């Protein structure tokens, strides 16, 4: 446990002169008025049958300033464990992640399977910093559905570091509505062969909201498959940031990795920043990334209006279809529907 004054904490925060935070200036976005800078918050966990939780120590080494601060302020790291071979029924729900630092470690043992639902939302003017570490043992599977929906003056950083052993499966779906600043970062370390990862997400921003979806995937084993697709919709004076990186190491032959970011700008005052990066040291790979930024296609809008669909409706239909693609592969109908409903509500 560390003790620091709020201003001292802020002085440790990353800022725009640091390459990884170039477009997300955390230091400038937080003030001493933000509650939670120097305290821990205890996540509320709804544990399904067979999943245990106990206070313990932090597992991995540090992976950046923010997780280190979280570990420093949180008195315990919540250790969640799914035993070997257990196919957990029903989701592990995690909420109450606002207004402080939280530290969690989830271990999914060999052949086990777990679904998590994380809700990152809370009252006004909170600062929240979550450090989530995950270990996926051989042949295990994790589905992570993340909803972030904060007030426009809240600041949030959520970092997940996922170490995956061979033949494990990660499915991740994020939906973010931003805040004064939200940074949702996922770091995946594929340590074995045959890992399959899906890392999709969408951000929908209005007002002066800011979301930063950052992904870092390191692939060290062969025959891994990675699919990442992030969709952004921004309007008013909001700003969307996407940073993605696939780092394919020399041994990671037969990697099949695809990254996409597509953003729709619905008003002239918005900003979108993207950096889809590939760093590749193995030759027998198929890696690709794509990025598009633009407005709705006027020709398609005209086509729809020609068929009698009013302009506003045409726009929302197209936007919804655009966003929904990020959740196409989510094969839990209820979970998918709940994400889509949130999207529709935002569009309405």
């Amino acid at each position: 446990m560390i003790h620091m004054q709020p201003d001292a904490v802020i002085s440790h925060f990353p800022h725009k002169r640091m390459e990884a935070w170039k477009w997300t200036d955390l230091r400038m976005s937080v003030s001493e008025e933000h509650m939670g800078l120097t305290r821990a918050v205890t996540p509320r966990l709804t544990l399904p049958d067979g999943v245990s939780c106990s206070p313990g120590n932090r597992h991995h080494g540090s992976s950046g300033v923010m997780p280190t601060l979280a570990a420093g302020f949180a008195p315990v790291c919540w250790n969640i464990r799914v035993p070997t071979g257990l196919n957990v029924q029903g989701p592990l729900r995690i909420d109450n992640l606002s207004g402080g630092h939280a530290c969690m470690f989830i271990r999914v043992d060999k052949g086990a399977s777990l679904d998590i639902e994380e809700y990152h939302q809370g009252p006004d003017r909170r600062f929240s910093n979550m450090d989530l570490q995950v270990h996926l043992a051989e042949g295990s599977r994790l589905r992570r559905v993340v909803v972030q929906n904060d007030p426009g003056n809240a600041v949030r950083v959520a970092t997940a570091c996922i170490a995956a052993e061979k033949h494990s499966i990660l499915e991740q779906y994020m939906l973010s509505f931003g805040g004064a600043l939200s940074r949702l970062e996922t770091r995946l370390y594929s340590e074995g062969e045959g890992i399959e990862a899906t890392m999709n997400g969408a951000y929908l921003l209005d007002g002066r909201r800011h979301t930063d979806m950052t992904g870092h995937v390191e692939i060290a084993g062969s025959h891994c498959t990675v699919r990442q697709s992030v969709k952004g919709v921004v309007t008013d004076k909001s700003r969307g940031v996407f940073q993605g990186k696939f780092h394919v190491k020399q041994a990671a032959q037969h990697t099949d990795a695809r990254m996409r970011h597509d953003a729709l700008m619905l008003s002239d005052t918005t900003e979108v920043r993207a950096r889809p990066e590939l760093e590749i040291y193995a030759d027998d790979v198929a890696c690709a990334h794509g990025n598009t930024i633009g407005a709705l296609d006027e020709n398609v809008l005209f086509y729809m209006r020609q068929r009698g669909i009013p302009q506003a409706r045409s726009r929302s239909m197209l936007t919804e279809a655009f966003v929904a693609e990020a959740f196409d592969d989510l094969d839990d109908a209820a979970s998918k529907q709940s994400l889509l409903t949130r999207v529709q509500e935002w569009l309405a």
Partner: protein
Amino acid sequence: MNADVKIKDSIDRGTVDSVRALEADRYKYGFDSDIDQEFAPKGLNADIVRFISEKKNEPEWLLGLRLQAYERWLEMEEPTWANTDYPEIDFQDMYYYASPVKKEGPKSLDEVDPDILAVYNRLGISLKEQEVLAGVQGAPKVAVDAVFDSVSVVTTFKKELAKQGVIFCSFSEAVQDHPDLVRRYMGSVVPMSDNYYATLNNAVFSDGSFVYIPPGVRCPMELSTYFRMNAQGTGQFERTLIIADKDSYVSYLEGCTAPMRDENQLHAAIVEIVALEGAEVKYSTVQNWWPGDSEGKGGVYNFVTKRADCRGANSKVSWTQVETGSAVTWKYPSCILRGDNSQGEFYSIAITNGCQQADTGTKMIHLGENTRSRIISKGISAGRSNQTYRGLVSSHKKARGARNFTQCDSLLIGDQCGAHTVPYVESNTASTQFEHEATTSRLSDDRLFYCRQRGLSEEDAVALLVNGFCREVLQELPMEFAVEAQNLVAISLEGSVG
């Protein structure tokens, strides 16, 4: 090629071995020529800067600018963000001025130092251009402003160009003869302290080319410059300024080779292009400097700042580059799309082999309305080389209707090399349409097999497929360069199949 490069089963071992044998003289342009040089003393200080300026008989303002740049440079730090790794450069262990000793100044080609002409011969400058140099009647019209080390030695076709009002001369001459143009445009695209190497260039630039195309003139020939670094340990700090006045057009070719060296050579040029209303500039480069031996020893460091300002409405600048040389490359030919409806293009082939490192790409800065840009980048990494495409596409709030399309493909040959893509995209207006696609893959075994089944050797098949991979860029090159470039692609990849 390195011994520990893993050879794929699919490849005929014999082919690889025979190519290895060729390796020794692979760099056929690596040789020295003995020409008297007049050196400034080694090292860099304010006096050296004064010496250079004095040698060139420069006006006061230019000396002032050099000194100011030198002061700024002292305070700057060498950038480290590029994906490159090389031993620290000792800036005090270099010469900053060298020129072939002037006899009387050649009045015709006959008077040119035969050694220099011999250098061109051995460089394999195309027959066409040799004819041009030799002044053969009816020779194709390619104007060659030959930069031998630092001082321009030969300029041909000046008269014909002059008829149209086109100015094509060495930068030093332009300083003497067209001071107003130089003073007005120099540094207006690349500010004096833009970056570390550009600032250094401002302090010690040696010579380069100057081009001015008057309003409404379509330059009657392609302007071509061969650069060649020759003196041991001589840094090259070329300075090129191209001004295309209203509604004019010019195509400019730059090509280079360098002799074999043990010591690293630093090359930090600045190229500035200004395109006024309705003007179009096409700038093509074939860069084939000494990349170092197969262990990466020696070789040129190429830290260049190239930038175009599409200042006028409806102007257009197109950069095409074939980069096969240098030990370390750091180069981002860019366009500032300031004029409404202006267009920028960047077509690039970069091939790295052996231990080469290249960090190259472009920046397209959209400021004006309806500005368009197009980026096609093809990177091929072989051997133990590393290559990075680094690009920025951005749109300003006022850049309504801005469009960019980027296609960025990398090919890996062998499993000891790396290919990286780092695009930055920043959009500040909804009417922007930015599209970026990138792929990384390797040569398909199936296609290789198909070619070999039809009787092509492994090497030929690779060359064929790689040329196909680069086609979109090759076809942007002017005719003069296209064939050379195609051969270069094949030569650069010799011994790399795997």
